[in-house]
């Protein structure tokens, strides 16, 4: 059916569809006015419309809306970023948003533009580069370049830049709105050249010059925005670097940008050429209308631009609005004005070969000035076209190939596939298609996810993106047999999904089962590769890190034995790696991290002495890294973590002085890191933990005031971090822990109402978190702790009935966790404490027999714990619980009471002298002796 006929059919069909079924046939007969053929056609289609019903094509194959980063909907309005309060949004795009903002501290009256950047800068190296480039850009001080004032990362880790707020109009729009004549346009352009020249002399390349990046203020002064921003946001490194980003600013992009060749100042000259072209002709150098991105990319690399004079529309071509010709005395006059010098100047700037363009913006500007003064210009036709043709001919194949690589991700897949279908046989086509799907999946998975990972509130969107991409990759896995590179890629993808699902180390969705599943899929792919090729370091290290990820998840799910096993395997892979011999820093860092992880697990499984040994190893490895590269923060980060861990273990083994020493070392290192990089949320989080550790250690030495000061600093740090990303489960847990710490101090100080307030704040958070992920061992344990603490505070405040209820709830929770994993010894310790607390409350309420039962349970729990971990602290605690039981049994059960207190005494007296030199031991001993003597 041809277009005309179809339109005629639709005339009738469209209206008929809107009518009820009964009205249709009458209407169609009338509307077709005797055209029998038309009537039959419409009736046939109406019949099909009915048959198609609701279902036909109404179930889409995919809902791409679910793939759009929710960030498009996010808004920072009203939020505080650094010292700036966000006022309103003034622009947005795929890379992030730009907001108008003002300083909260009122230091300056001036408003600024804050650009939030939607790219992941997750590694310290990329962040470091971001800060370094920012320094360079901040040093650009030119009246026609918008200043970069500041930059950093938000609490949630989103990088942002603070820039001069420019009130103005984009260059092309300004010229049209003000009906600027040719001379005025050229003069304005030379001013822009001067600003570009200034930046080039300071070795800063803009990389994205286009009219919308050049605003003209009310006073008619041009202001260049975003100088060099493109580079500091280009974090992809050697990755197919790209493409998405470049393709979208295609119109002003140079051939070398499209080919991925090195960017120089000549790149900006080219873009200036396109801008000038547009100012003079209102056209793109390559086409009348709009080209599809892949066609445009090809033209930029391949096609010689039309001379500006021939791009000016003739009289018939003149149209409304944007046409510059309308503003001048007419197209013919403009043609004449452009012919010759200006043609040559523009085409010289647009040369495909960077070295054939103007050597500087100043030279281009000088040529324009010479033209304005009627002097001969340096640009000649010869320097332009001849060379260009030659160049393109010489590079044709490469140019085309690179353009296709570029386009495959950026929306040109269709074009690539079409070409492939025409050009090649079935086998090659299948290969191509396969590559396309893989690329698409990859770009969904990595580029989109990376882009939104650090956005607050982006976690659900990440899950969807990842899930969708996994559907493709799941299909590819079976086809990947024998293709190692693809297998590694798929394994990496599984690891990434697992991380989003439930890697407890990162912000995650709390789906630990799904995470484990994904990590195991990665293992299943990596293990055969590593086995078949023992020298494949990449596979080996990917395998090691997968084992550690599994270990992390298992550990958080309460499977300590499994977690230890996987961590041990991972560490062994590092320790036996041939890379140890080369002293590679990256490797040393990874090995240190692994050693630390293992130490950490040993510690939480109760193997304190072994943990201390591993922590000392990790600290030693870190010191070597710091010594080798003192300016690298990584070494310090590792060292701080290791000494913290060591300090914490020493605390538990009773080596209080050495513990405090190590923990203070950790705190100092972390304070130094925050001082250097105050906006880094990770550093601030770690500093908060350091305060916690030092506070706890001080508490052990009874320096309550100093401890409280540290806990307060901890709470403040966690509070501000949580405010920035309220959905992050880990962040909320940290805040809850901080409340607990402070509550503990108040309990010691007998300030019970204040303690209760802190514990209740903690309880509220823990309840929410446990409800979100009911299978999460840690979340349940946390909740049981806060219940226990609230119960104790209530008890102290005389609210015994309430207290008993809350304590019972906490105990029931801990008992269920015990069944969940008998290896988790520490639950016994917590349970014993909970039993004792409840028992002592019951005594106060006169429920003596119930109390005795709970003291017995406390003793049993302590025994179970001591069997596994026979530290001095546990022995003392066991003795204490026997004494408590004896005390509760009292005169009414004198014989049994005597027996229990004797056991207590015996346990204490068996302890070696080294473990006796502390207050807790002395109090326990005195109590046991007293009970023993009165029950004898």
């Amino acid at each position: 059916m041809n277009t005309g006929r179809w339109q005629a059919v639709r005339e009738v069909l469209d209206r008929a569809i809107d009518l009820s079924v009964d009205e249709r046939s009458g209407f169609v007969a009338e509307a077709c006015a005797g055209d029998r053929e038309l009537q039959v056609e419409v009736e046939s289609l109406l019949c099909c419309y009915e048959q198609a019903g609701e279902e036909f094509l109404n179930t889409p194959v995919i809902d791409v809306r679910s793939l759009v980063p929710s960030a498009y909907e996010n808004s920072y309005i009203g939020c505080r970023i650094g010292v700036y309060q966000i006022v309103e949004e003034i622009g947005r795009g795929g890379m992030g948003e730009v907001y108008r903002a003002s300083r909260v501290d009122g230091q300056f009256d001036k408003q600024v533009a804050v650009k939030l950047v939607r790219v992941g800068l997750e590694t310290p190296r990329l962040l470091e580069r971001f800060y370094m480039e920012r320094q360079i850009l901040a040093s650009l001080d030119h009246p026609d370049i918008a200043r970069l004032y500041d930059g950093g990362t938000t609490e949630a880790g989103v990088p942002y830049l603070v820039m001069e707020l420019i009130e103005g109009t984009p260059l092309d729009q300004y010229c049209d709105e003000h009906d600027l004549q040719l001379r005025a346009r050229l003069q304005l352009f030379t001013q822009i050249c001067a600003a570009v020249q200034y930046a080039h002399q300071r070795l800063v390349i803009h990389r994205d010059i286009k009219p919308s990046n050049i605003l003209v203020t009310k006073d008619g002064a041009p202001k260049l925005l975003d100088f060099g921003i493109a580079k500091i946001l280009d974090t992809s490194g050697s990755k197919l670097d790209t493409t998405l980003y470049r393709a979208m600013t295609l119109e002003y992009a140079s051939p070398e940008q499209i080919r991925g060749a090195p960017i120089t100042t000549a790149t900006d000259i080219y873009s200036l050429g396109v801008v000038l072209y547009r100012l003079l002709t209102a056209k793109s150098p390559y086409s009348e209308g709009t080209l599809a991105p892949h066609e445009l990319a090809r033209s930029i690399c391949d096609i010689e631009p039309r001379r500006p004079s021939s791009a000016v529309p003739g009289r018939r071509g003149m149209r409304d609005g944007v046409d510059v010709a309308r503003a001048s005395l007419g197209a013919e006059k403009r043609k004449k004005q452009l012919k010759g010098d200006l043609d040559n100047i523009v085409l010289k700037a647009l040369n495909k070969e960077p070295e054939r363009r103007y050597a500087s913006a100043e030279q281009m500007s000088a040529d324009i000035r010479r033209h304005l003064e009627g002097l001969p210009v340096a640009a000649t036709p010869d320097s332009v076209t001849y060379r260009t043709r030659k160049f393109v001919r010489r590079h044709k194949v490469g140019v085309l190939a690179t353009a296709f690589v570029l386009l495959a991700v950026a929306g040109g897949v269709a074009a690539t596939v079409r070409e492939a279908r025409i050009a090649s046989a079935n086998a090659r086509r299948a290969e191509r298609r396969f590559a396309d799907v893989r690329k698409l999946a990859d770009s969904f998975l990595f580029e989109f996810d990376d882009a939104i990972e650090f956005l607050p509130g982006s976690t659900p969107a990440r899950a969807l993106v990842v899930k969708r991409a996994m559907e493709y990759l799941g299909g590819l896995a079976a086809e990947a047999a024998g293709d190692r590179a693809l297998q590694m890629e798929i394994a990496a993808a599984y690891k990434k999904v697992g991380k989003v699902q439930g890697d407890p180390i990162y912000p995650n969705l709390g789906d630990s089962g799904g995470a484990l599943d994904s990590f195991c899929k990665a293992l299943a792919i990596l293990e055969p590769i590593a086995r078949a090729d023992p020298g494949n370091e990449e596979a080996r290290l990917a395998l090691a890190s997968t084992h550690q990820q599994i270990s992390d998840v298992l550990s958080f799910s309460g499977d300590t034995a499994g977690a230890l096993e996987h961590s041990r395997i991972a560490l062994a892979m590092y320790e036996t790696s041939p890379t140890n011999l080369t002293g590679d820093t990256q490797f040393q860092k990874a090995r240190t991290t692994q050693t630390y992880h293992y130490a950490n697990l040993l510690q939480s499984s109760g193997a304190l002495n072994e943990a201390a040994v591993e922590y000392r190893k990790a600290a030693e490895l870190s010191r070597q890294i710091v010594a080798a590269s003192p300016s690298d923060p990584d070494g310090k980060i590792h060292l701080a973590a290791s000494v913290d861990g060591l300090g914490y273990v020493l605390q538990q083994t009773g080596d209080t002085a050495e513990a405090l020493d190590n923990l203070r070392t950790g705190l100092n290192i972390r304070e130094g890191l925050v001082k250097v990089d105050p906006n880094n949320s990770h550093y601030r989080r770690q500093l908060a933990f350091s305060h916690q550790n030092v506070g706890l250690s001080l508490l052990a030495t009874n320096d309550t005031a100093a401890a409280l000061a540290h806990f307060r600093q901890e709470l403040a740090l966690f509070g501000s971090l949580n405010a920035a990303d309220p959905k992050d489960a880990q962040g909320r847990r940290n805040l809850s822990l901080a409340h607990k710490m402070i509550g503990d101090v108040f309990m010691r100080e007998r300030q019970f109402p204040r303690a209760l307030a802190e514990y209740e704040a903690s309880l509220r958070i823990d309840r929410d978190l446990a409800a979100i992920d009911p299978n999460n061992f840690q979340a349940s344990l946390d909740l049981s702790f806060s219940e226990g603490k609230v119960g104790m505070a209530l008890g102290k405040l005389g609210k015994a009935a309430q207290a008993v209820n809350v304590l019972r709830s906490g105990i029931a929770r801990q008992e269920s966790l015990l069944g969940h994993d008998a290896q988790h010894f520490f639950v016994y310790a917590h349970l014993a404490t909970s039993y004792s607390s409840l028992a002592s409350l019951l005594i106060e309420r006169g429920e003596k027999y119930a109390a005795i039962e709970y003291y017995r349970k406390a003793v049993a729990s302590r025994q179970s714990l001591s069997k596994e971990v026979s530290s001095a602290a546990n022995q003392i605690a066991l003795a204490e619980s026997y004494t408590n039981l004896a005390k509760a049994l009292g005169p009414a059960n004198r014989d049994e009471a005597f027996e229990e207190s004797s056991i207590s005494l015996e346990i204490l007296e068996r302890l070696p002298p080294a473990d006796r030199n502390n207050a807790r031991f002395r109090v326990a001993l005195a109590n046991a002796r007293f009970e023993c003597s009165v029950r004898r």
Partner: protein
Amino acid sequence: MVAQELPEWQNRAHFFAVAAQLMRQILVDHARTRRASKRGGDVPRVSLDEALGQALAPDVDMVALDDALKELAQMDPQQCRVVELKFFAGLSNDDAAEVLKVSPSTVKRDWASARAWLFRELDRSSAP
């Protein structure tokens, strides 16, 4: 005050437009390969079938649909794009209207008559 622009996906509409075309291309290409391999007795690629063919595509003959869409594009290119956006990308009338820069009621009309026409074409192609 004018927006200080940012590059990359210009906006949601642009993303949708690209995604819809990609989905069509991938699904149809896949369906064609599958058809070819069934005829040629090639090794069946079961998992990819599952991932792309069955998991994503409802009960529609992709190859026939693609052929019909090519013809529809000749008759009315905009109607073809409406089908791409709604069927291959799951867009609502409002979203599709935003992409095509037309009113939602135009999208609704285009969609209704396109469905009627496509139904007939696919019906024909499946007839023996």
